């Protein structure tokens, strides 16, 4: 498929936590209208990379280019202002505030006299677009289930019309219908010309929507694949060997059937 302009370009990005190297020489490109899946085992550095791009962590070395110009993402505010929206794995919602307040947090309409009516209308519209099942937007977040909170977090990331949205395990807590809705949503976001970075352990979801699959292993790049790549190949890249616990288990199961 034809590629849009290059929005985000990472070269040689490393992150050191004391003696631990969480990320080493990471390269990543994200174009407009493209879904890039970021996969890897636990501890591969996916969440660290996401937090670096969201401005939560600062990289130890390396360059980040945004639309061709080098940028420093020194705070979450900077990343948001550039147009990088993030749905964190831990969601980062304020439990004492209601859904509307959480959706608009930091970007309230009319800062000297909050426009609650307009915010509530927009909240309902957005949530309906996502086919969200939120009973009431005037209840505090504390009263919502895990999946409902996930939907609120995704809705919040879309509110500012970002250029890139990063989703860290967006479907982990969702039901079947909601997962399908989130995947639809990712495709809708791509059609609108946004870039999407999707992190997931669910290979089915990844293959369903990703244009490219970037594999991380122990904090380093370990190959770029497409949705056509076979399951075995992907697992091999993720675990670092074609002979791994997943393949051994599959072989054993096939042996039992035969």
């Amino acid at each position, binding site marked *: 498929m034809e590629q849009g302009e290059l929005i985000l370009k990472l070269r040689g990005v490393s992150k050191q936590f004391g003696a631990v190297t969480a990320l080493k020489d990471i390269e990543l490109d994200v174009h407009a209208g493209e879904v890039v899946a970021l996969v890897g085992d636990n501890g591969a550095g996916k969440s660290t990379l996401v937090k670096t791009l969201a401005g939560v962590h600062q990289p130890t070395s390396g360059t980040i280019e945004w639309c061709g110009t080098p940028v420093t993402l020194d705070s979450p505010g900077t990343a948001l202002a550039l147009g990088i929206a993030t749905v964190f794995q831990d969601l980062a*919602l304020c439990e004492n505030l209601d859904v509307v307040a959480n959706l608009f*947090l930091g970007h309230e309409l009319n800062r000297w006299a909050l426009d609650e*009516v307009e915010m509530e209308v927009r909240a309902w519209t957005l949530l309906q677009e996502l086919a969200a099942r*939120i009973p009431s937007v005037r209840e505090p977040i*504390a009263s919502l289930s895990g999946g409902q909170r996930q939907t609120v977090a995704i809705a919040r990331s879309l509110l500012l019309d970002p250029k890139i949205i990063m989703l860290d395990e967006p479907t982990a807590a969702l039901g079947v219908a909601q997962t399908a809705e989130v995947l639809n949503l990712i495709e809708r976001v791509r059609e609108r010309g946004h870039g999407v970075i999707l992190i997931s352990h669910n290979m089915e979801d990844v293959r369903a929507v990703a244009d490219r699959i970037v594999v991380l292993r122990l904090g380093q790049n370990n190959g770029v694949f497409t949705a056509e790549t076979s399951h075995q190949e992907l697992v091999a890249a993720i675990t670092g060997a074609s002979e791994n616990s997943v393949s051994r288990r599959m072989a054993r199961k096939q042996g039992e059937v035969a």
Partner: protein
Amino acid sequence: MSGAQLDRADTRVRHDEGLSGALRAFFDRVRSGDLGMLPVFIGLLLITLVFSSLNPVFLAPNNLVNLLFDAAAIGLISLGVVCVLLLGEIDLSIGSMSGLSSALVGVLWVNSGLPMLLAILGAVLAGAAVGFVYGFLRNKFEMPSFVATLAGLLALLGLQLYLLGATGSINLPYTSPLVKFGQILIMPAWLSYLAAILPGALMVFSGLKTMKRRRDANLSSPGLSVLLARAGVLTVALIGCVAYLEQGRGVPYMFGVFTLFVVALDYALRRTQWGRSMFAVGGNAEAARRSGISVKRIRLSAFMLCSSLAALGGVFAASRLASASQQAGTGDVNLNAIAAAVIGGTSLFGGRGSAWSALLGIIVIQAISNGLTLLNLSSSLRYMITGGVLAIAVIVDSLARRSRASHGRA
């Protein structure tokens, strides 16, 4: 109305309509631990019953007028405490700050001959500077506000003693507007009644406007009956209070000014982006940071506001006593200001509270103090009883918090 309203589409939610619905929602909230102002009203009722049966003077209009005079200064300090408590922080130096500020007014105005308003401004700015230091220490060195302000308590008290020097106290001139403001100035009756009617009228006016906007936007609204009932109850209660106080001297200007500050902070907390950010930082600072809120700036603003209000409270206290002394701001001022905020319903754990808790809380505290004084009880007993009341308030706060958690309310 076209189709289902936006917020009425989900069938799992019970929709409370009209007056009975509003009442039912209220009882649900209370049962789940969202007590709001309820403990204050129950507390006030008990206090009134006990003290007026022991000494009928307690309920005499002029005694209540005095009570309001006394409440304004510490109430103002308590208003600042609400700001820091909302963030889950604390300021233990408010008493010393108020004492220092009264000393500053004495030195700058009486001793150095600066214009009175300039001296007051100087004292408030000193408060803002102290708050800036606390905020800086918290932001830059992650110094717990508990420790920073405990150090401040001692340092500011030292500065106050240093400023007052050997004489130990400065008398403010009795004929000055500041002392008149603190001791005799009473709002004219028409102004008091106007102030009693205005909130209800504004409530109906803005309520009708919101109702229309919500209906146009296809959202539900609580209904006219609820709005009118709330405004009606509020207006009748306020007019009743004013009429009762007018039997005596009337409503002190000092208390009116304090109430204005409460209204202003209430608006800022509920209806502006700054206020929303305050609640967000108090609820989940990391989430607030990731939403692009500058947590450090919010903290700084809260500490500065708290110390400035404490300084202004100190000026009020000085005008009430007509002097700036070494005793100003010591003793139970700290405890009373913090207790008032907590008793009024502002949580010590951050993220919950309102400006009104300062006003309601200080009336409870002041009523206890006033009642005990009328019974000729010594300050030793007063301290013990106020301490007990604070402990009860914190226990209620903790229990309500646990109940809210189990009912799925933050």
